[in-house]
């Protein structure tokens, strides 16, 4: 298990995949916060009136966490956020499926006709959650900007 968590190549592959996924997922939500609020509302798990606040801030959290994971800046914090978010998304999709809701996922595209929630979406979220938690506990520091800066601190000029 320890070797699995410190394997540089697996960690970098999972970082690129997960980081890119969070960045791509945030783009449509940032440009269409009102439609994203409607998608959140359809899940019927957030008190009325809070959807727009969540829709205004959450995509930016996804974007910064995705960038943090990809570039390797604030990596632990980004991985913690990614883990928490993906776990929440997983619970939301599972509960919507259990309640028989026929709604758009709102995961990537905000077009209501795209990405209806189904078992495939649930599996996608399970994988994303597993990857995020893997990154949170991973120990490889290869190709991280923060590690590079730690080893090569900027020279102070007089």
């Amino acid at each position, binding site marked *: 298990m320890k070797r699995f968590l410190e394997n540089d190549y697996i960690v970098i592959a999972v970082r690129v995949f997960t980081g890119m996924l969070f960045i791509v997922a945030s783009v449509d939500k940032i440009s269409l916060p009102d439609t994203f*609020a409607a998608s959140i*509302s359809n899940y019927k798990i957030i008190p009325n009136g809070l959807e*727009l606040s969540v829709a205004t801030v*959450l995509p930016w959290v996804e974007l910064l966490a995705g960038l943090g994971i990809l570039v390797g800046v604030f990596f632990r914090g980004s991985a913690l*956020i990614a883990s928490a978010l993906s776990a929440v998304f997983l619970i939301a999709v599972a509960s919507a499926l259990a309640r028989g809701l026929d709604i758009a996922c709102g995961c990537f595209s905000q077009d209501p006709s795209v990405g209806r929630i189904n078992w495939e979406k649930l599996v996608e979220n399970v994988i994303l959650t597993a990857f995020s938690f893997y990154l949170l506990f991973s120990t490889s520091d290869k190709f991280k900007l923060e590690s590079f800066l730690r080893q090569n601190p900027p020279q102070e000029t007089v």
Partner: protein
Amino acid sequence: MFRQAAQESLLIILASSVLGLSYSAVSQKGLFRAKDSAVAIANTAPSVISFEEAKTLHDSKVLFLDSRHPYEFKLGHIPGSLNIPLNTFEESRSILAAMPKGKLLVTYCDGVDCNSSMQLAAKLFEAGFTNVKIFFSGWQEWKSHGLPVEQSP
């Protein structure tokens, strides 16, 4: 390790909040655009309704919009519904312009195998209609219950 992760997460959430709220203020989208009607928008975004709900709304004389091709509409449709084919949505804007934006509308197409009812609902929502419902199981379910249908000459 977790102390560091928690501190970094808080910084990221703080930065995201600043970015999100600034973007909303500049772009006039999201929280600041709908500051006074956030609840209304959240409650009235297009959502899927069941057959029973569609039947109740139809009994209450709510306007149904049929997004299918005019030929299919001509063969049979839900009584009182209006044909707004998705591919000619732009041409229907003059009809829609006469309707109040808060008017309750129900979109439908053939049934679960088609998506045009959702796409029409999305277009209506974008056009400013705040009270749009989608009868997703549509025409097929309506017919399967033996309810009255209407044909155009």
